[in-house]
């Protein structure tokens, strides 16, 4: 019984990692339809921002404040990676809207540039980030040991999701975003600057990639190619959830997380992966446009 409960927790925990990783992509690929292959590398940059923050704290800040580095790293990763995203959008992507194949290649190239940049600055070997002390250890309830770091990730993903929903559904800028993503021509005809919306939305998606990178430092060491491990997962979650549907992304991430954990529990790690991919392929045969597809009565 308790082992099943533990697997459910692990599944949710894995789902929350997947969701964090995919959330930025749900914006850049899901809403904006840019096949953003640099997403993984934006995640990687977020992880290195965290590492850099740790280095700065070790060198310049008194030791008793060390734990604060992680708290500060989250907004720092968001802002810095959002800035890089904005630059990427301005220099490359804005010329490639509506050209998915070209944007795929161009963003892949941009990702390689980012990887090399990091390799030049920090070196090729992996670097370790020490978890802050308040995230070490675990919480014991009903005989289950739930690591604080995992609980923290689940909490963080809830905060990020809440923030994103409030932004999209409760603010003026969010309304503009939804209008542009739905009907670009008409949005410009009511006076919205689609240029500004594209730029800010892409930056926002990149920012969430940064936050995801920040939390990946809690899982293990980080290296310049860490993004590659997550890019497939991220696309998988967005496609299963339904391109353009944020609710789908949430359910997709949790679903994949829980199924993956159970498959691995029943078989082994590699067999589990095989089973989850088989399940996804079967699912997409049944529903090619994902869990939630956008269909409305716009013209009848």
């Amino acid at each position, binding site marked *: 019984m308790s082992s099943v409960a533990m697997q459910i927790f692990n599944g949710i925990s894995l789902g929350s990692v997947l969701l964090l990783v995919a959330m930025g992509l749900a914006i850049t690929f899901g809403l904006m339809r840019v096949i953003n292959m640099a997403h993984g590398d934006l995640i990687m940059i977020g992880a290195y921002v965290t590492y850099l923050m740790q280095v700065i704290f070790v060198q310049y800040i008194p030791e008793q404040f060390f734990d604060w580095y992680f708290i500060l790293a989250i907004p720092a990763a968001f802002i810095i990676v959002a800035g890089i995203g904005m630059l990427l959008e301005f220099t490359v992507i804005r010329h490639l809207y509506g050209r998915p194949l070209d944007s795929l290649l161009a963003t892949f190239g941009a990702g390689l540039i980012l990887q090399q940049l990091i390799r030049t600055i920090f070196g090729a070997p992996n670097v370790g980030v020490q978890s802050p002390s308040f995230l070490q250890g675990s919480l014991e309830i009903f005989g289950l040991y739930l690591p604080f770091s995992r609980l923290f990730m689940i909490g963080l993903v809830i905060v990020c999701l809440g923030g994103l929903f409030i932004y999209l559904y409760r603010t003026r800028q969010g*309304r503009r975003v939804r209008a542009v993503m739905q009907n670009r*021509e008409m949005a410009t*005809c009511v006076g919205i600057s689609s240029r500004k919306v594209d730029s800010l939305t892409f930056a926002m998606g990149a920012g969430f990639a940064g936050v995801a990178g920040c939390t990946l430092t809690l899982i293990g060491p980080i290296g310049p190619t860490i993004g590659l491990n997550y890019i497939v997962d991220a696309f998988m979650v967005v496609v299963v959830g339904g391109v353009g549907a944020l609710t789908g992304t949430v359910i997709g991430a949790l679903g994949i997380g829980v199924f993956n954990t159970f498959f691995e529990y029943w078989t082994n790690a590699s067999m589990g992966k095989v089973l989850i991919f088989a399940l996804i392929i079967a699912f997409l045969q049944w529903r090619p446009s994902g869990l939630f597809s956008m269909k*409305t*009565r716009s013209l009848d």
Partner: protein
Amino acid sequence: MLELNRIEAGYGESAVLRDVSLTIPKGKLVCLLGRNGVGKSTLLKTLMGLIKVNHGHIDYQSHNINDKSPTWRSRKGIGYIPQGREIFSTLTVHENLQLGLEARQDQKKNIEPGHQVYDYFPILKDMQNRKGGDLSGGQQQQLAIARTLVADPDVILLDEPTEGIQPNIVQDIQDVIKDLKQTNEKTMLLVEQSFDFASEVADYFYVMDRGRIVYEGEREELTEENMRGYLSI
């Protein structure tokens, strides 16, 4: 106020509009008539900046606006109500209306409950929290008109507002257009299929055929006899 001078425009290489000149004087309602597929909607899209001009120039308040974006044009007071409504179907009625405020220069954030659009279309108030896509075609058309009126535009471009809409709503929409003309003295360009309605409201009219203006005149000249060759009456 808004003037097209010998415009040639179209999609890519193929020109849909050929040598079109048309003037919309301030405070007047100009009707654009013609059969399906002769370029009326293309003309409106060109005026709005959705289609690039190949030759000729568009003047708005005596300035050339050929290179201005649709965003710029709408913010400077050109309101566009496209054919097929093009409301934002996953946004609520209220959100759709609030998007109409984007074009305003005065940073107004909310539509006051007693706004004129709610007098024109009371249904929009009752349905404010419904999704735009759940509305019927006629209600969507009302929403599209209201969304443009909220911006308080100087010129309104209306593309076949009563096409394919249930008859009881057609009457409402025609009443609103008449009221906009009489009480608010709005400048309007109305693309219309209904000859009767056009002859009732137009100050001036143009007839298009195969991408060209083939006939124009004052309302008095807008008679069935003169139109027989150009329209399917």
